[in-house]
């Protein structure tokens, strides 16, 4: 991926004004970065609020392991800035298309293959600047590793689909790029693969990604030369000679599994859950915790199949985007969500209905 040259620019004040105007007119806004995540969430009405021009690295201190960037910054550009210093985003976010912005990625709460082993997007967010529904630019959290002053609004913004505010700036913890990576492949049936991934996760092994598809289990190891070599010997299987392409293809949904017209479901379940009997094609990641399903089955059937597992299901791509694509909430939780929406965006300006029909 090449980093598109987007000029650094601060249009925060302009964004605030637009929001204030919209709030006074009660006119909904559709917050938009590069529009690469239009497929995700529910359909939403409103005038587009384009944040892509609000871009650029505001501060980067490699020895602090912290970077602060404006939300319109392209993910690819951010990654190359970090790579120059031997660092990376620890949650390995997917972009799903060229031009993806950091703001959109954080708002969707997307994390990639490394997630169960080093953390999710929310785990790396240290601070944010956010425009609330009154058009006020607010700052929460900060640029330090530990900070418990005030409620953790920064993490609340991650995955809120822009329904609580416009994220304009994000400070994130970053990680050193591991000295060495290796991928191994092992053939086995699904039950065994799930057991195996969880058995490994219970041991101190430097695993950084796992994926099961088509009776093949792939496992990526990351760490020091010696650490990876020792783990390779312990795990066995065959060396995949992978230069990262496989993991990129899974992360970006360019793997052949995803080339399929049927709706795509994401099932998030306890990692050791037994395989589902549900009809469809499966690709299992995250040590068993994230399972992709291609199926025409009804939402009720898909959600019913995991009702007892303690997990939840998202209609990730395709299907009926006016239905509840995210797992419906219990009535008390929904009420808390509505109250929070009111607290941040009383005029319901932002991304109406994008997450749940109610707000």
């Amino acid at each position, binding site marked *: 991926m090449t980093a598109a040259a987007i000029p650094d620019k601060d249009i925060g004040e302009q964004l605030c004004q637009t929001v204030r105007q919209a709030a006074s007119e009660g006119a909904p806004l559709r917050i938009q970065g590069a529009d690469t995540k239009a497929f995700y969430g529910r359909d939403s009405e409103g005038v587009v609020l384009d944040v892509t021009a609000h871009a650029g690295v505001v501060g980067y201190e490699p020895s602090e392991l912290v970077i602060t960037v404006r939300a319109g910054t392209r993910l690819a550009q951010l990654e190359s800035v970090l790579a120059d210093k031997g660092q990376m985003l620890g949650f390995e976010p997917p972009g799903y298309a060229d031009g993806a912005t950091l703001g959109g990625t954080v708002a969707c709460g997307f994390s990639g293959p490394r997630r169960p082993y080093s953390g999710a997007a929310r785990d790396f967010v240290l601070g944010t600047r956010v425009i609330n529904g009154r058009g006020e630019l607010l700052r929460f959290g900060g640029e330090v590793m530990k900070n418990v002053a005030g409620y953790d609004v920064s993490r609340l913004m*991650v995955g809120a689909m822009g329904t609580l505010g416009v994220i304009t700036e994000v400070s994130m913890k970053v990680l050193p790029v591991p000295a060495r990576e290796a991928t191994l492949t092992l053939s086995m049936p699904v039950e065994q693969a799930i057991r195996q991934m969880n058995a490994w996760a219970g041991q101190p092994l430097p695993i950084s990604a796992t994926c099961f598809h088509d009776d093949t289990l792939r496992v990526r190891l990351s760490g020091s030369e010696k650490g990876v070599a020792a783990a390779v010997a312990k795990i066995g299987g065959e060396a995949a000679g992978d230069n990262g392409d496989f993991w990129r293809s899974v992360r970006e949904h360019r793997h052949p599994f995803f080339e399929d017209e049927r709706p795509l479901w994401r099932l998030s379940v306890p990692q050791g859950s037994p395989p589902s009997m549900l009809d469809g094609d499966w690709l299992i990641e995250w040590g068993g915790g994230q399972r992709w399903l291609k199926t025409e089955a009804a939402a009720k059937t898909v959600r019913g199949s995991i009702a007892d597992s303690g997990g939840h299901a998202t209609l990730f791509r395709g299907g009926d985007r006016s239905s509840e694509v995210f797992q419906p909430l219990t009535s008390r939780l929904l009420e808390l969500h509505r109250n929070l929406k009111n607290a941040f965006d009383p005029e319901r300006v932002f991304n109406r209905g994008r997450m749940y029909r109610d707000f």
Partner: protein
Amino acid sequence: MSRAAETFTTGKQADREVHAKALRAWLPRHAVLDQVEELRPYECDGLSAYRKLPLLVVLPDTVEQVQAVMRYCAREEVPVVARGAGTGLSGGALPLEHGVLLSLAKFNRILDIDLVNRTARVQPGVRNLAISEAVSASGFYYAPDPSSQIACSIGGNVAENAGGLHCLKYGLTVHNILKLQVVTVDGDLVTIGSDSLDAPGYDLLALMTGSEGMLGIIVEITVRLLPKPESAKLIMASFADVEKAGDAVGDIIATGIIPGGLEMMDNMATRATEDFVHAGYDVDAAAILLCELDGTPEEVEDDILRVTKVLQRSGCTDLRIAKDEQERQLFWSGRKAAFPAAGRISPDYYCIDGTIPRKQIGYVLTRVAEMGAEYGLRVANVFHAGDGNLHPLILYDGNQPGELERTEELGGKILELCVEVGGTITGEHGVGVEKIDQMCVQFQPEELTQFHALKQAFDPKQLLNPGKAVPTLSRCAEFGAMHVHKGELKFPHLERF
């Protein structure tokens, strides 16, 4: 030291009797405390300079009882303060004169351990260390390990987003929990988070973590368990000056190694602990660093070599690697006992908790020493250097008139310095009542207003731990009148008192 009035006023006594009687309809007699001598042990948390007797203490031992207490208190509009083990250092569990203190001490059971999914479901009153002890034989542990881990409760850890010696690599409480059961202010039970790696809707799990008992009562926690590292080695390095030690911290991180733990102690701290636990510290050094490297034996071997080189290049005057597990534990025992050790060299000590960018460690420590001298107070430093989380311990004598006040003023100044260099007023101990004024320095009025609106979403009548964590704007106006920040008056539109 300021003490609560010893006697009950008559009006309050009448309320006390009415509420105690009503609550005994749901709770056993002995689970409602209403006698002065019974209430006394609850008058403060770990910040003992602040004390207040609660109206009542309740000690429920079922979730239904907690729900009944909350329903009753919501109806009667009686405020409620939750309390875990009471080790908090910011007055978060300080009782309210007109409020019920809800102790979760009886919720001390580990409910379920799931080794396949590597989780444990526990009640909030379970001690932090008890979780690791329960799974240790199976090769697992619960990572966040505050120095108070033998005493503090996991519920209190969630409420404060507690950190520990190994958080640089393994994360804070927020990174190590999956699910909560929470009783709302009006007595409903809600599940927040899930048994999988994420949950639908807003990240209320993150929001509850560190919310200091202001949003709900946590009655059950599902924590993640990690496999114990195969190998862990500890390096102890001495430095002839504090700035050099501070810089070495950044140098280690810059190599691309994330140590399992990276702690620093200055000379006053090492002397105090050495006298106390004989951990073998270099008491002539201006500062020592404790750097733990963990992972597979192969990784650790590599990392030890690399870090040793870095430390030598950073100018350490002496360097020792713990020769075995016993010595490693010994080196750590001093660090863990540093607070009580400070208690032995001074009648009282006051622990500050700011976080700063690592590169500022040297500068800030130097400034803190200068400021201490200006106030005529000794300051010992022992802290989570890898995270930039400072814990200056101001040594004072509460029996000397004015010393506590001077100490608090110095503490406030140190926190403001943390904000000035790009940090925060609290890394892990919370705001509570203690740092409430400094919140006015760290946040703008609009941000504080947003916090209040957020609280309203959970607790419209302000019954959960009211008055803590987030200051009112008028309080900030009052405080701002005394502290003009960077030449600007921060709350100009508000009336001064």
